[in-house]
């Protein structure tokens, strides 16, 4: 390795968002002409670190140097100008612009009178795609591109920048094997040209395949930096987790009862196809797969928020009207959505208002009888919240108190605004809201995203306990250890189809990843549900 200044040097970089320290002490040294892996669990602070490097966030403390010169980017434009290209985890493209316009936005080749030279621009895009070996129409709008294609557009953009430092935040998460190989070739070519590449991935096999050096992060801080050749994957995992796995995933044994949720042949053009599965009372079914595979969309369609083109959903033997979330709630379905701030909470309302928001809609009626969770029927949710259409504040507060207590929500007071609470407590409030409706089926989408380890374990324990009490749980999660640690069965979604179903014993990280990755061994053997 050259002795010259490293292309990128970060030391003790910290960044907090309100009370949450996303990055406590980020340290990273990347040499020119190398590919540096950055690994760590979700929430370890990798993406925050990347955003500091890319000028999206401004650090609170620490040193950032490029080629030995200290830098302090006020915005992404400055980082770009300094030769830093970042491909963020969620590609940020402009749906109304064409692919070509997306690539060259802000840097369009100019002709006479500073007017955009559209022909040169289109040729440039063609050349980039040819070099990347992809077949994309440069004139099509970015709207409707698959995640993989959006990623390709981002990579083309980064290459056209001719950056000295390229940072890729989980670029392979949604790519097929062919596309990954292509990406690796590009990364190696950049390395051989003397550029520095930072590569973030959850897949240690990719790290071993591509990278020279690996840095491990945990809980917002630097753990170790080694040559890839000097450290085994097992050792990396141990450093990433840094705690006892069993403690994080308390699994209470339960015996599955009758089928509560049955989904048959669900179909939505362009999103998912022929999705069939069932969930029994008392079991946790994990829905695994890559980001963008269509898991959340399936849950949303089952719940009736999104429309579907064909198929049936039955809850407790009764067919559910498509596109009608109110009917789904009445039938005993609950969906804790992916983004709690945007979809799960009324952030400017109190805990009480949030918890009672959905339960309010419920009326006592014939549909309530014969629920699977008999004891919950007599629980707090069944008490009247309103008389003659007028809310009873005491009843509402009692409901919120009961559920907040059970979930150990830490709020200053029940009339505290949801927005003032930590992510973990917000998630508990969302859970409380849906549990207050007394559901038979609970669908949770990324239930522990962005919450701290302690609360994570609490949420897991809660889900496990609820399942043991007879609730049917469908859990969508991108965190493999979470799925493997919690689920009784795992359904793997690949490109909108259920690729395979694995029992708890069969579900190893390798088996799930192989089924989830497009282009990997295509085993479409679907074993029907374990009884």
């Amino acid at each position, binding site marked *: 390795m050259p002795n010259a200044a490293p292309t990128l040097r970060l030391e003790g970089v910290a960044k907090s968002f309100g009370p949450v320290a996303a990055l406590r002490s980020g340290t990273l040294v990347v040499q020119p002409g190398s590919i540096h892996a950055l690994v760590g669990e979700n929430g370890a602070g990798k993406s925050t670190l990347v955003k500091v490097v890319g000028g999206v966030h401004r650090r609170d403390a620490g040193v950032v140097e490029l080629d030995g010169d200290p830098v302090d980017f006020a915005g992404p434009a400055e980082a770009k100008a300094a030769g830093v290209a970042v491909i963020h985890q969620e590609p940020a493209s402009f*749906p*109304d612009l064409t692919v070509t316009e997306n690539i060259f936005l802000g840097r369009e080749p100019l002709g006479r009178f500073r007017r955009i030279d559209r022909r040169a621009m289109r040729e440039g895009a063609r050349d980039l795609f040819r070099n990347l*070996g992809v077949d994309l129409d440069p004139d099509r709008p970015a709207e409707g591109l698959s995640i993989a294609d959006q990623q390709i557009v981002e990579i083309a953009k980064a290459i056209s920048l001719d950056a000295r430092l390229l940072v890729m935040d989980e670029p392979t998460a949604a790519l097929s094997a062919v*596309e990954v*190989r292509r990406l690796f070739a590009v990364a190696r*070519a950049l390395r051989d040209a003397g550029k520095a590449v930072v590569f973030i991935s959850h897949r240690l096999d990719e790290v071993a395949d591509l990278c020279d050096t690996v840095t491990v992060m945990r809980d917002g801080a630097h753990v170790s930096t080694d040559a890839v050749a000097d450290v085994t*994957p097992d050792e990396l995992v141990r450093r990433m987790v840094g705690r006892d796995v069993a403690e994080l995933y308390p699994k209470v044994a339960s015996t599955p009862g009758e089928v509560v949720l049955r989904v048959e042949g669900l179909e939505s053009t*362009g999103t998912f196809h022929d999705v069939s599965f069932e969930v029994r009372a008392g079991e946790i079914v994990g829905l695994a797969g890559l980001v963008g595979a269509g898991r959340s969309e399936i849950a949303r369609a089952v719940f009736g928020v999104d429309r579907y083109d064909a198929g049936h959903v039955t809850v407790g033997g009764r067919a559910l009207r498509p596109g009608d979330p109110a009917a789904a709630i009445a039938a005993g379905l609950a969906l804790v959505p992916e983004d709690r701030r945007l979809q799960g909470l009324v952030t400017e309302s109190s805990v009480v208002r949030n918890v009672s928001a959905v339960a309010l809609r419920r009326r006592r009626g014939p549909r309530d009888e014969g629920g699977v969770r008999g004891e919950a029927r007599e629980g707090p949710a069944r008490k009247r919240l309103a008389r003659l259409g007028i809310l009873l504040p005491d009843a509402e507060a009692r409901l919120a108190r009961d559920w907040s207590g059970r979930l150990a929500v830490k709020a200053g007071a029940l009339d505290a605004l949801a927005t003032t609470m930590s992510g973990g407590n917000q998630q508990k409030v969302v859970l409380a809201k849906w549990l207050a409706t007394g559901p038979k089926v609970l669908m949770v989408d990324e239930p522990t995203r962005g919450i701290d380890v302690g609360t994570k374990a609490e949420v897991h324990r809660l889900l496990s306990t609820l399942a043991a009490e007879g609730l049917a749980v469908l859990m969508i999660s991108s965190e493999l250890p979470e799925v493997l640690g919690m689920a009784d069965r795992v359904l793997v979604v690949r490109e909108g189809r259920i690729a395979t179903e694995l029992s708890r014993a069969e579900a190893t990280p390798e088996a799930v990843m192989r089924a989830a990755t497009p282009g990997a061994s295509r085993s479409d053997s679907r074993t029907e549900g374990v009884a």
Partner: protein
Amino acid sequence: MRSVLRRREAGIALALLVVIGVTTAVQPGFLFTANGWRDLLLTPAILVVLAVGQAVVVITRNVDLSVGSVLGLTAYLTGRLFMAAPDLPIVVVTLVAVAAGALLGLINGSIVAFARVPALVITLGTLYVYRGVTLTWAGSDRIDAGDMPNSFLDLGTQQVLGVPVLTVLAAIVLAAVAYYLHTSRGGRQLYAIGSDPDAAALQGLPVRRRLLGAFALGGALAGLAGVMFAARYGTVSSGAGTGMELQVVGAVVVGGVAIFGGSGTVAGAALGAMLLLTINRALPVVGIPDFWQRAVVGVLIIGAIALDRVLANRRSRRLAAARDADPPSASPPDSGAPPGGTAPPGAGPNDREEATT
């Protein structure tokens, strides 16, 4: 996509031709008299200038409701300038009014860009504030034709080669802004900002500067429209331009500029303005009662939005279907070798169960 947009503008142009054709068939004087021809071109000129400015703002996913008040204020300002200094060159007066409009637009833009308050609310507020300024300044006074030089008033009626001067002005404004939006980096960035504001920030686009520019341009054009108003009508009261903001937004929407930003053209907006005003003049000629005239405009606006929705749905369905037919992983890579070509065949990550060292 471009062809769809083209078709969209062609559709409005066609509707315009149909309206003119039908009305002329009923009453040949609608087109085939000197007055008819002049009115057809002259009436929409002011609204076209406003619509071009509004389109630029709407493309960035914002809206400027204060343009009617800006027009009123700058029209009154124009009259007062002539009263104070009758010998002032027309060009200077025009530039002052345009600058005043730009300043008022800049105030809107600053609040939107820096305080991050929705433009709808801000410009609704400044609509009343700017109108209030005019009311206070003018009181019950009124600028009359006698207060302004004849050379200026002539601009409102004069023609060049059979085309009214104001219409020529509007056409120049339209061409200049259309050229800017289509061929400059800044213009494309306005579309990008309207398409996805968060992504625009993440890309490091100068979002604030562009927003300020869009609002300033919208205000400047409203200022120009104020001058045109004064020249055209010769009288300016404190209520000039009241309610025009809704007409403008209607024209922009009818013209195919997406109200949520990111797509549409100023040419479409200009055609939308012409269509709205031409229909307004055509309906009485064809004998449709006054009451129905407003309803027709309303139907046109709703119809335009419905059409947008249908087109957008059809497009996303088509794109989704295309994706199903040709999933990205299944598309064979082009024959071109990847740069460097250092990837040993079969060394992809998925061929390895577990990496060992």
